[in-house]
């Protein structure tokens, strides 16, 4: 095994058109090289019509740079950035479902919430759902604590990250959309209209 000493988490930000099939085109650039995507989030950007992917992988800078160039080469990709964790502000959100009776009897709920920056989203007779937002270690820590109290379900969202130094591109994006407004996504309109189509 090669030493993975230079490997670290990279946050890849991909600005794209909103296009059906683009997610696959982006994903296979990783899978072709047998790279594991640790987290993937798609969302709108601050500019109407332009989407962004946040992708997290643990790799060397050289591999990440090559992948970024392959991503940027795709017709519907506008721009790709890659950043280490130091260069971004990032958050992940997690939900925890626990049995209400145990949690109410055995835990000092108020202290727990305070220590982990969590809040209760739903409180029912049978279960309670907590939510917390933060870095991976923080959301993981609460899992460990709640495990003891019969954690029923846990889910963590993909990472969202904002690049600390992205002013330049923001201006370009706005200008870009102003000059050439994006087109609407064309979805299949016919899936439920079979009887109206002549077939053979």
């Amino acid at each position, binding site marked *: 095994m090669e030493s993975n000493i230079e490997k670290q988490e990279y946050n890849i930000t991909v600005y794209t*058109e909103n296009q059906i*099939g683009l997610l696959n085109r982006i994903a296979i650039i990783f899978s072709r090289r047998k790279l594991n995507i640790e987290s993937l989030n798609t969302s709108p950007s601050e500019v109407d019509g332009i989407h962004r992917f946040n992708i997290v992988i643990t790799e060397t800078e050289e591999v990440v740079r090559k992948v970024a160039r392959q991503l940027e*080469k795709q017709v519907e990709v506008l721009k790709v950035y890659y950043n280490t964790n130091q260069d971004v502000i990032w958050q992940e959100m997690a939900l925890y479902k626990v049995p209400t009776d145990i949690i109410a009897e055995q835990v000092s709920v108020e202290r727990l919430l305070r220590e982990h920056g969590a809040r209760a989203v739903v409180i029912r007779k049978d279960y309670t759902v907590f939510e917390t937002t933060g870095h991976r270690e923080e959301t993981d820590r609460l899992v460990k604590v709640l495990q003891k109290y019969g954690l029923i379900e846990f889910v963590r969202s993909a990472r969202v990250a904002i690049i600390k130094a992205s002013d330049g591109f923001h201006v370009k994006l706005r200008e870009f959309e102003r000059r*050439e*407004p994006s087109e609407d996504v064309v979805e*299949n309109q*016919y899936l439920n209209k079979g009887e109206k*189509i002549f077939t053979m």
Partner: protein
Amino acid sequence: MDTLEMKENKTEEQKPKAVATLTGSQILLNGLIAEGVETIFGYPGGAIMPIYDALYDYKETLNHILVRHEQGATHAAQGYARTSGRVGVVFATSGPGATNLITGLADAQIDSTPMVCITGQVFAHLLGTDAFQETDVINITTPVTKWNHQVTDASEIEEVMAKAFHIAQTGRPGPVLVDITKNAQIQLTEYFGYKKCEHIRSYKPKPIVRKSYIEEAAALINAAKKPFVLFGQGILLGNAEQEFKAFVEKSGIPAAWTILGAGAIPTDHPLNVGMLGMHGNYGPNVLTNECDVLIAIGMRFDDRVTGRLDKYAKQAKVIHLDIDPAEIDKNVKTTVPVWGDCKESLPMLTELVDQKSHAEWLQKFRDFDREEMEQCIDAEINPTEGELSMGEIINQLNQLTKGDAIIVTDVGQHQMVACRYAKFNNTRSNVTSGGLGTMGFALPAAIGAKFGAPDKDVVAIIGDGGFQMTLQELGTIMQSKVNVKIIILNNQFLGMVRQWQELFNDKRYSFVDITSPDFVALAKSYYIDGKRISERSEVIDALTTMLNHDGPYLLEVMVKKENNVFPMVPQGCSVSEIRLK
């Protein structure tokens, strides 16, 4: 919300008047005509029937060549694109028709060949229902296309076709696939006329050439004592043959080619020092590890060119000119990257380089040539006794065609021999499957090559193995009366694999012994004339008869069974460890 309303109002006001009401299929064909398409290679089927029905009315303007297998259509389109410089067009139906395109798409993707494939698809409401002949074509083809798109409504077709042609042929060219559901082919919609696509906002086909890098590159070149140019297909794709010639002639730098770059300058040009790579020439390989500045132009440092990367040109400063930024630093670390179209960057570089002749350095290449000639080439191309060699056939062919023919090769030993020894006076004359190494490429590619360059002699050189992979295209040659000359170099082996088994696997010939039908009789059953030869005394006559024959011709040449292609850079070795025998 505001912006949405504004958008709608705008479309109401500015909506242009429809020219006509047409079906999706008619709009598609109008688009092809507007893009200057004359030839389509295709095969009909259920899901593409409406397009074929419309095509019936366009028979005079669009020449449809019925192939015998959809793979053949893709390779024919590639051959067409390679010789003509235009976009190859393919029609195929859904399901198996579309999956049969994959090999050709992958080949076109890795060899940067502009191609637009149109596939029929099941009705839009049937997508995802496992309908008859339904395959998820978009997802299957995504890794092997530059771009692909599914159309479910006729109103999209005009714009998608315009985009497809724009993307296929701009920047680094590549294959594009448009999948059209049957309802969209039939559907009537208002047609506003065809508008060519000239710009896609997210697509940057040509990086801007930066003056500062040109200056840095020129400074390196001017200071170099032993500069060396490697050129690839990028020169051809950029139509930059003249610009390239001007550059090497002014700078006086020896230049070697990748197999897809062959013909960018004539074989006989005094600065053309030969072929790179595993079976390339001796000098270019050895001297790669001696030059002080390596100038790579429109090539991508494939592993078959570089051999072992950690021992590749480590002593040299590297200048890399490429239109695709992803190629820079991908395999070989660059000292000066010159992003951009070489048609623009080369003249800028030529202006800044000093007029020089590197006579002493060039002589080194010629010295290696002499050694290679004595130890290796002479026996291959000028044997006087024993069985026929592949090299002597190519050599004799050169004498007759004078280097003006288009040579289409398949994959394997004959391909390396043909690329090494064929003479090319003109650009776009060497059609071969480089990156993918697709056996079965040559016969269909030759068909397309002839349509792309009807005034040229097209000679396909194929092994006995590869020929049997796509031999059904003899039917296409017969039906469409395609005047191609076919030479089968028959060594009764899958020769390249056999060579490796001989050299590296102790002659354990594992499944490389291939038997063949009577190829001449087979051709005859397709009403194609042919002849089989095995004697040296027959070669010139047979080749002359073939070339002078009015129509397609198949010449089978029985060659030495266990001949090896040399020189050779064994796998895992450095280019300077190239073996002459």
